[in-house]
């Protein structure tokens, strides 16, 4: 049995043990330390980041995470490209450099995604009808979100999912007909999609309002990325509740990233994102990369054991604050002073200039 197989088996066992929401942070961190050592020995960019930090001789949990931009510039994987079974890519224009998350095995992704979605999205039902407001994996094969939602069909779906998004856009007539059908039959449905798709649907549905059967729910995820008008989280929740007749508690935001195999989901009262037990969430100072003091705002770092074949320690650019047993992810930090006339990194990477 190789070291990888041993670690994969232990991670799978931990996911199964914590799938119901239990926590064992001691076991998680012990396994994470071993995984990080394994990855440092096999993923050259990660090894260089650890070496540069000067913390390489210390506890692996103190090593810095890999910033998400690194996935745009170098391959981050413990295996050769020939062994990739799936490469998820960040969204972007054709000119932009897109981050790549190369996986040689989807079993850990599937185990983590299924277990936490069951706990956070479908704890009360075995199966229900799924309406998808996002491109299918066939349409967008390198989207990790599309992959995940496609996998929901065999895990949680009753029959085939209804593809409200197809051929590059929303089929509003199909959406309305399917929702009216749910109203008639009294069969609960789950609407799953991107935030901007829900905004487009809201803009396109006009005066139509729905009273979906009890047990219906909405999962919305992702930012707007200039694809629709921007809607604040609370406003989005109210908008979806009013449009579909679903209580605000049944509108659940998902936080996922191309560079992660696991996801976080939102809970209310108070509103915060909850991570599964095999994921460690830390808020760090953007300059020292060390954890901020309890209660303080910092940049979100996520250590995901399911990322066995790439790097588990991922450093995001998202600001977050701790709230009870979870975090709230804030928007991009506002500029306190004028930035000057130097062109912004994003503008260059996106090739925005005409």
């Amino acid at each position: 049995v190789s070291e990888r197989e041993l670690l994969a088996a232990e991670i799978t066992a931990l996911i199964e043990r914590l799938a119901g929401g239990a926590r064992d942070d001691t076991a998680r961190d012990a396994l994470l330390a071993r995984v990080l050592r394994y990855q440092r020995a096999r993923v050259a960019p990660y090894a260089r980041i650890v070496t540069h930090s000067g913390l390489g001789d210390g506890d692996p949990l103190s090593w810095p995470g890999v910033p998400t931009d690194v996935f745009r510039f170098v391959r981050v994987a413990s295996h050769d490209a020939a062994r990739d079974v799936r490469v998820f890519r960040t969204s972007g224009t054709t000119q932009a450099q897109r981050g790549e998350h190369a996986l040689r095995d989807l079993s850990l992704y599937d185990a983590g995604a299924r277990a936490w979605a069951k706990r956070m999205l479908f704890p009360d039902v075995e199966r229900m009808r799924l309406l998808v407001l996002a491109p299918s994996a066939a349409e967008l094969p390198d989207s990790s979100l599309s992959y995940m939602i496609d996998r929901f069909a065999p895990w949680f779906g009753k029959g085939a999912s209804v593809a409200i998004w197809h051929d590059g856009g929303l089929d509003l007539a199909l959406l309305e007909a399917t929702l009216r059908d749910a109203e008639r039959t009294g069969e609960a449905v789950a609407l799953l999609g991107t935030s901007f798709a829900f905004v487009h649907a809201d803009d396109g549905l006009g005066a139509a309002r729905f009273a979906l059967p009890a047990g219906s729910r909405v999962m919305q995820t992702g930012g707007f990325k200039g694809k629709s008008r921007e809607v604040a989280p609370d406003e989005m929740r109210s908008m979806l509740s009013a449009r579909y007749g679903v209580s605000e508690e049944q509108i659940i935001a998902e936080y996922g990233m191309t560079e992660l195999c696991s996801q976080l989901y939102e809970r209310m009262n108070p509103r915060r994102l909850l991570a599964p037990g095999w994921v460690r969430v830390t808020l760090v100072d953007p300059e020292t990369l060390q954890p901020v003091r309890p209660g303080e705002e910092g940049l979100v770092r996520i250590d995901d054991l399911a990322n066995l074949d790439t790097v588990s320690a991922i450093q995001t650019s998202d600001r977050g604050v701790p709230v009870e047993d979870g975090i709230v992810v804030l928007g991009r930090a506002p500029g306190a002073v004028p930035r000057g006339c130097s062109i912004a990194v994003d503008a260059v990477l996106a090739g925005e200039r005409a």
Partner: protein
Amino acid sequence: VSSAENEPLALWSRVQSAAPALRALSVEERARAIATACAALSRPDGALLALLSASSGLSEAMTRWALETTFGAFSERALLELVAGRQARATGVAAILSGNVLSAAARPMLLPLLAGVPVVAKASSRDDALPHAIAQAVSAAHPLVGAACAVASFGHEDDARLDALLAGAASVQVLGSDEAVAAVRERLAPAQTLIGRGHGLGIGVVLHDAAVAAASEAFARDVAAYDQRGCLSPHAILVEGDDARAEAFARLLYEALARIARELPRGSVPGDARAEQLQWRGVAAARGVLHASITFAVSCEHGAPLRPSPGYRNVGVYTLQSRDVLSARLGQLARFVKALGVAGQLDAQAFAALAPYVARAGAMQTPPLAAHLDGLHPLDGL
């Protein structure tokens, strides 16, 4: 500033009523007034320095340096040489100051006055201290010149005021992002002239005949100036030769930045820039060699494709096999390059196709008054 003093229509009325007197002055009198005002602005008192430091985010020492080098270039002689043989046609200039480094207001506010053209500048309400200081300094130096200069402060969403400002202008100068320039262009009538100065970046080159130690000292000044937030600021420096030479230069540049940081400390860094800095440094560590402190960093990424810097004294060093491949080596950054700094034998003509402004290393951020930034004569559009 009272409401009436901030209304573009009232300001146009005021400066246009002063226009005949401005034009009646000789060019020597106007140049002397501007030079006198700039001499005062180059030696700000403590209160103005503190105000500008707070609004710009630059340290007080860097703010002082920026004012000295910017306004120090506005000598009477340099102004007269600049305007010699040129005749202004514009009847009024609107200067839209949007997203600039601290001293960017100097040229668009002062050069129209030199040419005898009244000017109304639009500053953002959170960053209008220097435009107001310029207007006051000109008034103090020569009331007739000062009367032809005004500043309106309002936010970018205030379309009514913007339209009123543009309506009074024969010529419009915009300093800001490409989006800001395009937004103003859409609002202009065909007869109005637009000079847009969009955002950009600088690139440094260390040629094979340059001494790397001297080059590192010079480029450290270019990187530190304005905390690398200017459109002339170098994001990347290419070192002609092999990887070892690039690495040696990167190490020396890091040491030089450490020395400059004692003299001209970095100012505050907004939260989003700190997150970008974290990402930029992570990529550098992952694919090259990173020398980093809290307040500055130098990466050496050898033959990797160039990438932009988040600014705030984070600069990339790359290997350049030969100057013959410089154009190709710029890659995705090529179309954003506004300044090229050169260490070594400077052949400005040879590099002119790569950037509108070519300077010696160490002088990228201190262009002479006559420099054709953006490829334009400083008085174009007037």
